Protein backbone atom coordinates (compact mmCIF):
# COMPACT_ATOMS: atom_id res chain seq x y z
CA UNK A 1 0.00 0.00 0.00
CA UNK A 2 1.01 3.59 -0.38
CA UNK A 3 3.38 4.78 2.33
CA UNK A 4 3.00 8.40 3.19
CA UNK A 5 6.42 9.75 4.21
CA UNK A 6 7.11 12.80 6.32
CA UNK A 7 8.89 14.56 3.47
CA UNK A 8 5.89 14.17 1.16
CA UNK A 9 3.43 15.15 3.85
CA UNK A 10 4.92 18.65 3.89
CA UNK A 11 4.00 18.96 0.22
CA UNK A 12 0.28 18.74 0.92
CA UNK A 13 -1.39 22.05 0.28
CA UNK A 14 -3.42 23.90 2.90
CA UNK A 15 -6.53 23.48 0.75
CA UNK A 16 -6.13 19.70 0.72
CA UNK A 17 -5.62 19.69 4.48
CA UNK A 18 -8.78 21.73 4.88
CA UNK A 19 -10.77 19.21 2.87
CA UNK A 20 -9.23 16.25 4.69
CA UNK A 21 -9.84 17.96 8.03
CA UNK A 22 -13.50 18.58 7.15
CA UNK A 23 -14.11 15.01 6.06
CA UNK A 24 -12.24 13.56 9.06
CA UNK A 25 -14.04 15.75 11.62
CA UNK A 26 -17.47 14.84 10.35
CA UNK A 27 -16.96 11.14 11.07
CA UNK A 28 -18.96 8.73 8.94
CA UNK A 29 -21.05 11.48 7.40
CA UNK A 30 -20.63 11.86 3.65
CA UNK A 31 -20.32 15.22 1.89
CA UNK A 32 -21.51 16.43 -1.48
CA UNK A 33 -19.12 18.34 -3.74
CA UNK A 34 -20.92 21.67 -3.44
CA UNK A 35 -21.21 21.24 0.33
CA UNK A 36 -17.45 20.76 0.62
CA UNK A 37 -16.95 23.81 -1.57
CA UNK A 38 -19.15 25.92 0.71
CA UNK A 39 -17.70 24.60 3.95
CA UNK A 40 -14.06 25.04 2.93
CA UNK A 41 -14.49 28.14 0.78
CA UNK A 42 -12.81 26.37 -2.15
CA UNK A 43 -13.96 27.10 -5.68
CA UNK A 44 -15.03 24.14 -7.80
CA UNK A 45 -12.02 24.70 -10.07
CA UNK A 46 -9.69 23.90 -7.16
CA UNK A 47 -11.89 21.42 -5.34
CA UNK A 48 -12.66 18.90 -8.07
CA UNK A 49 -9.07 18.33 -9.27
CA UNK A 50 -8.18 17.74 -5.61
CA UNK A 51 -11.06 15.31 -5.08
CA UNK A 52 -10.05 13.48 -8.24
CA UNK A 53 -6.45 13.15 -7.06
CA UNK A 54 -7.49 12.03 -3.56
CA UNK A 55 -9.79 9.44 -5.08
CA UNK A 56 -7.11 8.22 -7.50
CA UNK A 57 -4.67 7.76 -4.64
CA UNK A 58 -7.18 5.82 -2.62
CA UNK A 59 -7.76 8.37 0.16
CA UNK A 60 -11.32 9.18 -0.86
CA UNK A 61 -14.37 7.07 -1.63
CA UNK A 62 -17.19 8.35 -3.80
CA UNK A 63 -20.60 6.80 -4.19
CA UNK A 64 -23.77 7.76 -6.03
CA UNK A 65 -26.61 8.65 -3.70
CA UNK A 66 -30.22 9.18 -4.85
CA UNK A 67 -31.35 12.76 -4.37
CA UNK A 68 -33.79 13.52 -1.55
CA UNK A 69 -35.57 15.99 -3.82
CA UNK A 70 -37.82 14.49 -6.46
CA UNK A 71 -36.80 14.95 -10.08
CA UNK A 72 -33.19 15.74 -9.21
CA UNK A 73 -30.35 13.48 -10.40
CA UNK A 74 -28.37 11.32 -7.96
CA UNK A 75 -25.28 12.96 -6.45
CA UNK A 76 -21.73 11.91 -5.68
CA UNK A 77 -21.17 11.64 -1.96
CA UNK A 78 -17.63 11.67 -0.62
CA UNK A 79 -16.17 9.96 2.45
CA UNK A 80 -12.62 9.23 3.53
CA UNK A 81 -11.30 5.71 3.07
CA UNK A 82 -9.45 4.01 5.95
CA UNK A 83 -6.15 5.16 4.47
CA UNK A 84 -7.51 8.68 4.00
CA UNK A 85 -8.69 8.79 7.60
CA UNK A 86 -5.25 7.74 8.83
CA UNK A 87 -3.64 10.40 6.66
CA UNK A 88 -6.05 13.09 7.88
CA UNK A 89 -5.43 12.14 11.53
CA UNK A 90 -1.68 12.27 11.08
CA UNK A 91 -1.96 15.68 9.42
CA UNK A 92 -4.24 17.07 12.11
CA UNK A 93 -1.81 16.07 14.87
CA UNK A 94 1.34 17.19 13.07
CA UNK A 95 2.61 20.36 14.79
CA UNK A 96 5.34 20.93 12.23
CA UNK A 97 2.80 21.88 9.55
CA UNK A 98 1.55 25.46 9.28
CA UNK A 99 -1.91 25.87 10.87
CA UNK A 100 -5.02 25.97 8.71
CA UNK A 101 -8.19 27.98 9.31
CA UNK A 102 -10.86 25.90 11.08
CA UNK A 103 -13.58 24.49 8.82
CA UNK A 104 -17.26 24.53 9.58
CA UNK A 105 -18.74 21.07 9.41
CA UNK A 106 -22.25 22.51 9.14
CA UNK A 107 -22.67 22.50 5.41
CA UNK A 108 -25.84 23.28 3.50
CA UNK A 109 -26.80 23.35 -0.12
Amino acid sequence: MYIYGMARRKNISKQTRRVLSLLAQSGARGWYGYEISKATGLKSGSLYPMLMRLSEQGFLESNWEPSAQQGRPPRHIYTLSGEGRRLAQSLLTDDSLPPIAPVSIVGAT
Partner: protein
Amino acid sequence: MRRAAERLMACAAKIMPAEQKEWAEAMQAELSHIASPARALGFAAGCFQTALMSHLKAAKWEPVGRALLCFHISVWVFAKFYGGVKLTGAMQAGSVNLSAFQINMIGLSGFTYLGVAICLVYRKWIAAMLCGLAALGLNTLHLMAAIFSGPASPRTAEHIDVLSLMIISEEYFIWTTVLVGGAIMWIWQTYFRKAEL
Protein backbone atom coordinates in the same frame (compact mmCIF):
# COMPACT_ATOMS: atom_id res chain seq x y z
CA MET B 1 -27.63 32.82 -16.16
CA ARG B 2 -28.86 29.37 -15.23
CA ARG B 3 -28.95 28.40 -18.91
CA ALA B 4 -25.39 29.66 -19.37
CA ALA B 5 -24.24 27.58 -16.41
CA GLU B 6 -25.91 24.49 -17.83
CA ARG B 7 -24.36 25.05 -21.24
CA LEU B 8 -20.93 25.56 -19.72
CA MET B 9 -21.33 22.36 -17.73
CA ALA B 10 -22.41 20.48 -20.87
CA CYS B 11 -19.23 21.70 -22.57
CA ALA B 12 -17.21 20.56 -19.56
CA ALA B 13 -18.80 17.11 -19.76
CA LYS B 14 -18.04 16.94 -23.47
CA ILE B 15 -14.32 17.72 -23.13
CA MET B 16 -13.72 15.62 -20.02
CA PRO B 17 -11.57 12.56 -20.86
CA ALA B 18 -13.54 9.28 -21.17
CA GLU B 19 -12.00 7.75 -18.02
CA GLN B 20 -13.21 10.71 -15.96
CA LYS B 21 -16.73 10.97 -17.35
CA GLU B 22 -18.16 9.93 -13.99
CA TRP B 23 -16.67 13.07 -12.47
CA ALA B 24 -18.32 15.18 -15.13
CA GLU B 25 -21.66 13.53 -14.32
CA ALA B 26 -21.08 14.22 -10.62
CA MET B 27 -20.41 17.90 -11.34
CA GLN B 28 -23.53 18.13 -13.51
CA ALA B 29 -25.61 16.57 -10.76
CA GLU B 30 -24.23 19.08 -8.22
CA LEU B 31 -25.14 21.97 -10.49
CA SER B 32 -28.80 21.02 -10.44
CA HIS B 33 -28.75 21.33 -6.64
CA ILE B 34 -27.44 24.91 -6.56
CA ALA B 35 -30.31 27.32 -6.10
CA SER B 36 -28.59 30.63 -6.91
CA PRO B 37 -28.05 31.13 -10.68
CA ALA B 38 -24.96 33.28 -10.08
CA ARG B 39 -23.39 30.66 -7.85
CA ALA B 40 -24.34 27.98 -10.35
CA LEU B 41 -22.50 29.89 -13.07
CA GLY B 42 -19.41 30.28 -10.87
CA PHE B 43 -19.53 26.59 -10.03
CA ALA B 44 -19.90 25.63 -13.70
CA ALA B 45 -16.96 27.86 -14.65
CA GLY B 46 -14.76 26.06 -12.12
CA CYS B 47 -15.92 22.68 -13.41
CA PHE B 48 -15.19 23.76 -16.98
CA GLN B 49 -11.68 24.75 -15.90
CA THR B 50 -11.24 21.32 -14.27
CA ALA B 51 -12.45 19.52 -17.40
CA LEU B 52 -10.21 21.62 -19.63
CA MET B 53 -7.13 20.88 -17.51
CA SER B 54 -7.98 17.17 -17.48
CA HIS B 55 -8.43 17.27 -21.24
CA LEU B 56 -5.06 18.97 -21.75
CA LYS B 57 -3.34 16.53 -19.39
CA ALA B 58 -4.83 13.54 -21.19
CA ALA B 59 -4.08 14.90 -24.66
CA LYS B 60 -1.41 13.06 -26.61
CA TRP B 61 1.30 15.67 -27.03
CA GLU B 62 4.01 13.30 -28.23
CA PRO B 63 3.06 13.29 -31.94
CA VAL B 64 2.85 17.09 -31.92
CA GLY B 65 6.29 17.35 -30.30
CA ARG B 66 7.74 14.82 -32.74
CA ALA B 67 6.29 16.67 -35.75
CA LEU B 68 7.73 19.98 -34.47
CA LEU B 69 11.12 18.37 -33.88
CA CYS B 70 11.14 16.84 -37.41
CA PHE B 71 10.18 20.20 -38.90
CA HIS B 72 12.89 21.99 -36.97
CA ILE B 73 15.58 19.43 -37.87
CA SER B 74 14.56 19.64 -41.56
CA VAL B 75 14.85 23.43 -41.50
CA TRP B 76 18.14 23.09 -39.69
CA VAL B 77 19.65 20.70 -42.25
CA PHE B 78 18.39 22.85 -45.11
CA ALA B 79 19.71 26.01 -43.44
CA LYS B 80 23.18 24.58 -42.94
CA PHE B 81 23.31 23.26 -46.52
CA TYR B 82 22.00 26.51 -47.99
CA GLY B 83 24.26 28.62 -45.77
CA GLY B 84 27.31 26.50 -46.64
CA VAL B 85 26.72 26.74 -50.40
CA LYS B 86 25.96 30.45 -50.26
CA LEU B 87 28.91 31.31 -48.03
CA THR B 88 31.35 29.26 -50.08
CA GLY B 89 30.13 30.95 -53.25
CA ALA B 90 30.37 34.39 -51.72
CA MET B 91 33.87 33.71 -50.38
CA GLN B 92 35.04 32.41 -53.75
CA ALA B 93 33.62 35.50 -55.47
CA GLY B 94 35.52 37.60 -52.94
CA SER B 95 32.41 39.44 -51.76
CA VAL B 96 32.69 38.11 -48.20
CA ASN B 97 35.80 38.19 -46.08
CA LEU B 98 35.40 36.35 -42.82
CA SER B 99 37.70 37.07 -39.91
CA ALA B 100 39.51 34.25 -38.13
CA PHE B 101 37.16 34.73 -35.16
CA GLN B 102 34.07 34.28 -37.37
CA ILE B 103 35.50 31.17 -39.03
CA ASN B 104 36.29 29.71 -35.60
CA MET B 105 32.76 30.43 -34.37
CA ILE B 106 31.19 28.80 -37.45
CA GLY B 107 33.48 25.79 -37.11
CA LEU B 108 32.72 25.40 -33.41
CA SER B 109 28.98 25.73 -34.01
CA GLY B 110 29.29 22.90 -36.54
CA PHE B 111 30.68 20.66 -33.79
CA THR B 112 27.91 21.65 -31.40
CA TYR B 113 25.27 20.85 -34.07
CA LEU B 114 26.92 17.47 -34.43
CA GLY B 115 26.62 17.15 -30.66
CA VAL B 116 22.89 17.94 -30.91
CA ALA B 117 22.45 15.25 -33.56
CA ILE B 118 24.27 12.63 -31.44
CA CYS B 119 22.27 13.58 -28.33
CA LEU B 120 19.00 13.32 -30.28
CA VAL B 121 19.96 9.87 -31.57
CA TYR B 122 20.67 8.72 -28.00
CA ARG B 123 17.59 10.54 -26.68
CA LYS B 124 19.52 12.79 -24.29
CA TRP B 125 17.08 15.67 -24.46
CA ILE B 126 18.69 18.01 -21.93
CA ALA B 127 22.14 17.53 -23.44
CA ALA B 128 20.68 18.13 -26.91
CA MET B 129 19.09 21.33 -25.70
CA LEU B 130 22.32 22.54 -24.13
CA CYS B 131 24.31 21.74 -27.31
CA GLY B 132 21.68 23.56 -29.37
CA LEU B 133 21.90 26.59 -27.14
CA ALA B 134 25.69 26.53 -27.37
CA ALA B 135 25.38 26.43 -31.18
CA LEU B 136 22.99 29.34 -31.06
CA GLY B 137 25.38 31.28 -28.84
CA LEU B 138 28.30 30.66 -31.22
CA ASN B 139 26.15 31.66 -34.21
CA THR B 140 25.14 34.82 -32.39
CA LEU B 141 28.79 35.66 -31.71
CA HIS B 142 29.57 35.12 -35.39
CA LEU B 143 26.66 37.32 -36.47
CA MET B 144 27.59 40.02 -33.97
CA ALA B 145 31.17 39.95 -35.20
CA ALA B 146 29.92 40.29 -38.80
CA ILE B 147 27.55 43.15 -37.95
CA PHE B 148 30.04 45.14 -35.91
CA SER B 149 33.14 44.37 -37.97
CA GLY B 150 35.06 47.07 -39.81
CA PRO B 151 35.20 47.82 -43.55
CA ALA B 152 37.60 44.90 -44.23
CA SER B 153 34.69 42.51 -43.79
CA PRO B 154 31.44 43.68 -45.41
CA ARG B 155 28.44 43.99 -43.16
CA THR B 156 26.18 40.94 -42.98
CA ALA B 157 23.08 43.00 -43.72
CA GLU B 158 24.38 43.70 -47.22
CA HIS B 159 24.70 40.00 -48.02
CA ILE B 160 21.75 38.55 -46.26
CA ASP B 161 18.65 37.59 -48.28
CA VAL B 162 15.09 37.00 -47.14
CA LEU B 163 15.46 33.21 -46.96
CA SER B 164 18.59 33.44 -44.79
CA LEU B 165 16.81 35.88 -42.52
CA MET B 166 13.81 33.56 -42.22
CA ILE B 167 16.05 30.60 -41.42
CA ILE B 168 17.97 32.54 -38.77
CA SER B 169 14.68 33.81 -37.28
CA GLU B 170 13.26 30.29 -37.18
CA GLU B 171 16.32 29.03 -35.36
CA TYR B 172 16.13 31.82 -32.78
CA PHE B 173 12.39 31.39 -32.42
CA ILE B 174 12.63 27.63 -31.83
CA TRP B 175 15.42 27.85 -29.28
CA THR B 176 13.82 30.75 -27.48
CA THR B 177 10.58 28.76 -27.31
CA VAL B 178 12.43 25.70 -26.02
CA LEU B 179 14.28 27.77 -23.42
CA VAL B 180 11.29 29.78 -22.24
CA GLY B 181 8.98 26.73 -22.34
CA GLY B 182 11.52 24.67 -20.41
CA ALA B 183 11.90 27.43 -17.81
CA ILE B 184 8.11 27.75 -17.39
CA MET B 185 7.74 23.97 -17.04
CA TRP B 186 10.55 23.86 -14.48
CA ILE B 187 9.09 26.74 -12.44
CA TRP B 188 5.62 25.16 -12.62
CA GLN B 189 6.87 21.75 -11.51
CA THR B 190 9.10 23.17 -8.77
CA TYR B 191 6.90 25.82 -7.21
CA PHE B 192 3.29 25.34 -8.23
CA ARG B 193 2.81 21.58 -8.35
CA LYS B 194 4.54 20.89 -5.06
CA ALA B 195 1.28 19.77 -3.57
CA GLU B 196 1.01 16.18 -4.69
CA LEU B 197 -2.46 15.89 -3.26
